[in-house]
């Protein structure tokens, strides 16, 4: 998988930033002509992950870029925070489980909405979630 095309980065701190992340990701998804359904899935996943940062991580950053692999193009979004980290990842990915006031669909739901999902977390260090949605 190689990076290509435009790279964008923005901080995530507030609810307003969650809206801006959605717009940023949608712009990239439209540029590589993801289908409307795939755009919607990716933007929704990005919204969940950005909100997770505001709710649990305190603040963080998202990086969005275009990637290619085997002739396909995809949008990769990487969400990184230096918050508390996740102690029990398996539990955090379980639908309906939440450590806060949420529905517990954010992380597991986001994983279902994208093609590639990778999470790197360590208690006390922070969490980085990377998602990719490929064109078909």
């Amino acid at each position, binding site marked *: 998988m190689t990076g290509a095309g435009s790279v964008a980065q923005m901080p995530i701190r507030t*609810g*307003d930033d*969650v*809206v801006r992340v*959605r*717009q940023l990701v*949608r712009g990239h998804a439209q540029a590589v002509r993801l289908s*409307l*359904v795939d*755009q*919607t*899935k990716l*933007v*929704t996943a990005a*919204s*969940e992950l950005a*909100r997770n940062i505001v709710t649990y991580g305190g603040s963080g950053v998202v990086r969005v870029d275009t990637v290619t692999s085997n002739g396909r193009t995809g949008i990769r979004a990487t969400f990184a925070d230096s918050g508390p980290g996740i102690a029990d990842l398996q539990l955090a990915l379980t*639908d309906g489980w939440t450590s806060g006031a*949420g*529905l517990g*669909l*954010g992380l*597991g*739901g986001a994983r*279902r*909405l994208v093609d590639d999902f990778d999470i790197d977390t360590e208690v006390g260090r922070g969490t980085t979630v990377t998602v990719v949605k490929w064109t078909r």
Partner: protein
Amino acid sequence: MERVPILQLGNALLVSIQVDLQDDSVVALQEDLAERIVATGAAGVVIDISAVEIVDSFTGRMFASIAALSRVLDAETVVVGMRPAVAITLVELGLSLEGVRTALDLEKGMAILDGLAARRGIEDQDPDDNAERPVTPGAPAP
């Protein structure tokens, strides 16, 4: 923060979401709606989301709580105009919007509310309706 306008249309309140809302605006909408339902005595709420490009778990949950809240205040909520891509995404996300009535467009949504209001009118006039009988303290339940 954006504030979503609430319009009154006969016996119903109409909310048309036209912009990408941040979480605070969605919470404010819920509070504004509760106040307007009580102030106007509206029997129904229609939320038009035909311009909404994404509904994530937060917004979806808020629709469900608006529906539950309005029911407690004796009003029905209908969410209308959901885009197909939004519906597909919501289901895959794991959000079924249980307890939320939906209709394909505004006209069908208003028809649902009219139907509910008509049925409610008939029940109110029914002489056999238990609720209309005077309550005798200490009397055994029928």
